[in-house]
C-alpha cells in the first residue's frame, strides 16, 4: 500500500542512507542510517509524492544483545495520500544520541522527551530535553531491558515504603 514511499526513498537516497526496507502485516518500514535521520525525515515531509505532514508516534525499542542496541522508531502518516511508513534509526549504547525531529514535526517534542526519559536516548537539538513521566531525581531509564521491574526509587523516602532505607 505504501510501497511508493519505500521506492521513492530508495531512488532518492543512493549513498547508503537507507540501510534496509521491508514490509510486514501491511506496515512498510525503512531502516535509516543515523546521520541521515533528519534529512530523510524532512524529505518525506516535503516531497509531494510522500507528503508525510503528520508524525503519529515516536518511541524507542531496546533490542538488548544486538548492535546497535536501541532503535528509535518513528511512525509517519500522510493526510492527503493516507499512507504510512515506519522508520528506524539504530542507536548504539555508548553514543546514545540521534538528531531531533522537533524542527520537522513540532508535535514530536513530548514524544522525544518520553523516549529520552524511559530509554536514555538523547535527541540532539531538542529545545527542552528533560524527563517527562518520571521525576527529575530519578536515576536510570526504566524501560531499558536491564532495569529490573521490581526496583523501587520512591521520591519520598520513609520507612515502610518499599525501596526506602530502613
Amino acid at each position, binding site marked *: 500500500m505504501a510501497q511508493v514511499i519505500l521506492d521513492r526513498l530508495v531512488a532518492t537516497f543512493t549513498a547508503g542512507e537507507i540501510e534496509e526496507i521491508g514490509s*510486514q*502485516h*501491511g*506496515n512498510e*518500514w525503512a531502516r535509516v542510517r543515523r546521520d541521515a535521520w533528519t534529512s530523510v525525515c524532512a524529505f518525506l515531509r516535503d516531497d509531494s509524492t510522500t507528503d508525510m*505532514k*503528520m*508524525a*503519529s*508516534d515516536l*518511541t524507542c*525499542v*531496546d533490542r538488548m544483545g544486538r548492535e546497535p542496541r536501541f532503535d528509535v*522508531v518513528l*511512525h509517519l502518516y500522510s*493526510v492527503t495520500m*493516507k499512507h*504510512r511508513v*515506519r522508520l528506524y534509526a539504530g542507536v548504539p549504547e555508548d553514543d546514545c544520541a540521534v538528531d531531533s525531529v522537533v524542527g520537522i*514535526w*513540532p*508535535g*514530536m*517534542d*513530548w*514524544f522525544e522527551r*518520553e523516549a529520552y526519559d*524511559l530509554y536514555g536516548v538523547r535527541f540532539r537539538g531538542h529545545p527542552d530535553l528533560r*524527563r*517527562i*513521566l*518520571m*521525576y527529575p531525581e530519578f536515576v536510570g531509564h*526504566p*524501560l531499558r531491558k536491564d532495569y529490573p*521491574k521490581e526496583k523501587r526509587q520512591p521520591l519520598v523516602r520513609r520507612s515502610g515504603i518499599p525501596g526506602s532505607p530502613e
Partner: protein
Amino acid sequence: MKTEKTLTPLERGGASSQAEGSRRIVLGVQEPDDLDLPTDPLPLNMGPSHPAMHGTVRMVLDVEGEKITSVDLQIGYLHRCFEKEAEHATYTQIFPYTDRLNYVSPMLNNVGYALAVEKLLDIDKKVPERAQFIRVIVGEMSRITDHMTCLGAGAMELGAFTVFLYMLKAREWLYELLEEVSGARLTHSYLRIGGVSADLPEGFSAKLLDIIARSRGVIEECGKLLNKNRIFRDRMDGIGIITREEAIAWGITGPVGRSTGFDYDVRRDHPYLVYDRFNFDVAVGSVGDNFDRYMCRIEEMHQSMRILEQALEQIPDGPVIINDPRIRLPAKSETYNSIEAMIAHFKVIMDGIHVPPGEIYSFTEGGNGELGFYIVSDGSGRPWKCRVRPPCFANVSILPKILPGLFIADIVPTFGMINMIGGECDR
C-alpha cells in the same frame, strides 16, 4: 470603626516604605495607587491537586495580572508503568492494563489492543463476524460514555452542574448495560484475543435501543441548557484556537483534531472491524475553538448512536470467539471434565498465546483520537515491547503553545475540552 486606619505605612504598601520589587494591596484601602494590578511577571502553580486539573497534571504558569505569558505543563503524576508491566505479562493479561488507559472508554482500548495482537497472529480476518459486531457495539457505547464524561465535566467546571448530573445519569445507563455484558462497570476486560469473552446477554438489543432513545433526549436537553447560554458561550467561543496546520503538525486527532477542520477519522479513512458497513458522518469543525470541540463531541455521540442502531439490525448469529485451540480457552465444561482440555487451558494461561515474531503498528479511533498500539513480538507468550500511542498525549502537548495570551480562567474550559485523561496520557 475602620481598622485600616491603624495600619502602619509598611503594611499599606506606601510608596516610600515599599520594598524593591514587591507590592502589597491591602483590601479596604481606597487610594488608587494601591489598586493598580502588579505588572511584574508572577509565577503561579496550578495543580496537581487542583479540581480543574483533574487531579493529575501540574501547570507552572507565568502570569502578568490575569494574563498567561508562559506555561510549563508537567505530566506523569499518573504514570503506572504500563509498558514495563506489559513486557512481563502474557498477551491476555494485558487486557486489564488497557482498561486503565483511557478509563472512561475502556472498551475502545480493548478493541485497539486486541486488533493489534490479532494482526500479528494473522487472524484479524478470521475473527467471527458476530464478535466483530459486538466489538463495534461495545466500542461505540464506550465512545458515548467518553464524550458524556468530557462534556459533563467540562460544563460543570464552568458552573453548569445540572448538565454534569444529566450527562452522568445517561452515562450510568450505558455503564449498567456494559456491566451486564462484561460483569464490571468500568474496567470491563471484555475482549479476548480472537473474539470476546461472552455473548451479549438476553434482551440486550431492546435495552440498548431504549437507552439510545433516552440518551438522545438527555443530549438535547443539555444542548438547550448550554448552546445559547451566555456564560457558557462567552467562555467557549474563540478560546483556545488550534489551526488545522497546527493540528496536523502536532499529530492531534480525534474530536479535537476534527474541530480544527482536519477531517480524519480512522473508522472512515482506514476501516477496521465492520465499520465499512455502516452509514455515518464525520463531524468537522471550522474554527477550532472550545465551542467547536464541544459541538464535534455532541455530533459524534449522535453518529455513534446511528452506528449502534445499524449494528443491532445487522448483527448475525454465530460464535463469538475464534475456534483455534492455540488462542482461545477451551469451554469450562471441557476444562473440568477432560485432561486434554485441562492441559490446553493450563498452557494458554501459563505460557500465554504464542505470537510469531514481528512488529505491528495498529491504530483505531479511540475516544480522543488515533489510539495506536505498536507491538514488538519475539515469538514468546509475552510481548518484547507493547507501546501505546496515546491520543491525548499529543493533544495535551499543544497546550503550552495555545494557552499563552489567554486568561487564567480560560485554562479551565480549554483544558476540559482538550479532554486530558491522565491514565492514557501518563500510562
